[in-house]
């Protein structure tokens, strides 16, 4: 045998031995609530994933310095998914015995986990993303929670924001709104609701598809700027394709102030590569950005001051970091609600109850230092979204500046669509 083969056989034997090693278990010590977290610090969306997990963990570390939630310390364990669905399922199955909630941070993993988690009675929280029709909760999606706001609410809020900028909803008539979307299901998700809104308000809507991965958008922008002559463009991309519209718009001379990005295209990592071309770009968000909030300042002081921070200090206050803090706030407040009602320890079902009876008022947010940081949320068994409020920010070349207050969506239209879609899902599933 060749020498290399000797080594490889030895390695294979070693791996076979490793195979017999069991999976390390996660036992809670004392009054401790364990949160297994599905994260992606590698892979194509690592900046988003690392920021999100980092912010969330920092918030939990901060709460621990104040004695935890109702006297229960928080512990977390990360499981790397690299945004891959198979890894996400494996992480979920591995940590299932210790989970009271699962947060996939990925649409693909969420879809794959809906059936499993519903059977295992563990709520799936898909904060700020899909699936939008799960907002209806109830019997159809009992364990899925697209909290704070979903894509359809976001789209409706965008139209309301444009109406505000134009000076009233009647001014929308005759305007041209283009949706530049990545040609995957995520990108096409908001087309029906935009068509409904176009019908209602009389503006002209057209969708411009960009084939994935979306690095070539020149033709679409010539179309949008010269032929269609859009008044506003909604930028619905993801990952690397978020930056391209800014450069292309600069090239065809389309004003960046009229481009409104979705919140997965509204972070520092998306605009910095475009340099000057990005100045003036507007993006939507469901939380505040920057470090100018009492809560963020306290985290910097107590957590980073003690050297226990999860990320580099410069990333505190960035969009994804703050989004992670929102995740942390929502989960810990739900935990507090659950412990107040059921005592400790909590099961997945009890946590689901807490998520359905979450009432995060403005007063409570002020109390924890998050006043103006995130919108108030009030969920119900048939409303797993809890609000749908959105705000808008603009890139000034150096940082994001908030340019609006909380903008509500058009609830009737959004919920009509949600009901329609959920009924179709129920019919398919029951067959």
């Amino acid at each position: 045998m060749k020498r290399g083969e000797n080594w490889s056989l030895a390695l294979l034997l070693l791996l076979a031995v490793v195979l017999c090693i069991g999976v390390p278990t996660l036992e809670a010590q004392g009054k401790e609530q364990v949160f297994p977290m599905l994260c992606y610090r590698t892979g194509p969306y690592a900046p988003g994933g690392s920021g999100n997990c980092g912010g969330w963990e920092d918030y939990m570390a901060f709460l621990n310095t104040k004695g935890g939630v109702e006297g229960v310390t928080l512990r977390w364990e990360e499981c790397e998914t690299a945004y891959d669905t198979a890894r996400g399922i494996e992480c979920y199955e591995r940590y299932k015995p210790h989970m009271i909630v699962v947060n996939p941070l990925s649409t693909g993993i969420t879809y794959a986990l809906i059936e499993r988690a519903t059977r295992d009675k563990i709520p799936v929280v898909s904060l700020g993303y899909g699936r939008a029709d799960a907002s209806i909760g109830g019997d159809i999606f009992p364990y899925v929670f697209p909290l704070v706001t979903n894509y359809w609410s976001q789209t409706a809020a965008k139209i309301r924001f444009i109406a505000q900028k134009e000076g009233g909803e009647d001014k929308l008539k005759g305007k041209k709104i283009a949706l530049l979307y990545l040609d995957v299901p995520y990108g096409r998700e908001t087309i029906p609701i935009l068509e409904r809104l176009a019908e209602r308000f009389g503006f002209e809507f057209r969708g411009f598809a960009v084939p994935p991965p979306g690095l070539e958008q020149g033709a679409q922008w010539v179309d949008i700027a010269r032929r269609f002559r859009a008044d506003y463009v909604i930028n619905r991309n993801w990952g690397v394709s978020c930056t391209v519209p800014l450069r292309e718009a600069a090239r065809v001379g389309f004003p960046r102030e009229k481009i409104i990005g979705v919140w997965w295209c509204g972070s520092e990592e998306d605009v910095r590569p475009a340099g000057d071309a990005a100045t003036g770009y507007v993006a939507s968000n469901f939380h505040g950005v920057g470090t100018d909030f009492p809560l963020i300042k306290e985290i910097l002081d107590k957590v980073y001051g003690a050297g226990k921070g999860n990320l580099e200090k410069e990333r505190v206050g960035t969009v994804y970091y703050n989004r992670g803090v929102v995740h942390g706030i929502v989960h810990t407040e739900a935990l507090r609600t659950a412990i107040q009602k059921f005592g400790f320890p909590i099961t997945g079902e009890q946590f689901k109850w807490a998520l359905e009876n979450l009432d995060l008022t403005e007063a409570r947010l002020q109390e924890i230092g998050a006043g103006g940081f995130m919108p108030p949320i009030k969920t119900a068994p048939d409303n797993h979204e809890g609000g749908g409020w959105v705000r808008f920010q603009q890139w000034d070349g150096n940082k994001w500046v908030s340019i609006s207050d909380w903008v509500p969506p058009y609830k009737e239209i959004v919920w009509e669509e949600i009901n329609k879609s959920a009924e179709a899902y129920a019919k398919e599933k029951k067959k």
Partner: protein
Amino acid sequence: MFYRETGVFRESYAADMALFPIPLDRWGVLVLLLFAILGVPYLTSQYWMGSLIIPFLIFALSAQGLNFLTGYAGQLSLGHAAFMGVGAYGAVILYARYGVPLLPSLLGGGLIAAAVGTLFGLPALRIKGFYLAVSTLAAQFIIEWVITHVKWIGGGVFATIDTPPLRISGWLLDTPVEKYYLTLTIVVGLMIFAKNVVRSRVGRAWMAIRDRDIAAEIMGISLFRYKLLAFAVGSFYAGVAGGLMSFTYYAAANIEEFNLLLSFRLLGMIIIGGMGSVLGSFLGAGFIVVLPIFINQVLAAFGKLAGRLVTTDLLANTEFMVFGALIVFFLIAEPLGLARLWQTLKNYLRLWPFPY
């Protein structure tokens, strides 16, 4: 000393044509099969079955389909994940919308994938090698686009069809054990068929085409028939694997799972496992699907020992690096794949303890 053929007397044509002529081989495979049927559900947990063994079996099946196409017939294909997607949607549509029973709808999904695969295999009659790879790459994108945009297939704006509860003539399959048995039965059945196909006239024709297609044509092997047959059979396996995936693993048919990255992973599976070998499909699937989890566990154990020195993103990135390094190492040590390594080991054991 082991695996020797001396002392093995075959006294009938059936014994001569057996799949595993050497007794040690035959017993080994039987023991493995018994362990898979009886041992795995009782000795391993739901986690192992549901998230490690079921995807391992499904990807092994799909890799075998690609092995037919690339390993035996020599037709390089980069669109295999798309054929899995066709099979997935076909099976779920037949099962959910038309009420076809479970097993026939899996078969139907496979046949639909075979038809689509044959269609995209037509360029193979004119082009070879890298050029064929590009045209199958086109298949990947075209099929993804069609499934996303044609409402009748994709089912609305999410382009995801959820699988209704699995029922085989009234029996509800909802535990991981039952889903594991379903997957195991189908995969074992199709792999036995695969082992026979590659020894048959069809398999030999494929190998002749791979080695020198002009000589094969001169000898009278119809390139048209056998190349298209390779695409058809390979895509059939991919389609059944895709159907199994959306029935037992994802519980939904979602085209974003069957993307270009998966096509590359499948190609990686057969290259590392061994092209042109049924065992190679299993080994390659195990390497790519299951090994990263173990690297993750070993590194996590090291990480716990090192305490706060090791951050979570360092662990995640190290896992990537270790996995890549292992691929490079194995391919340098044995370019023909892990199956070849196994064969070399068997040859060594045959002579052991003698050196030659």
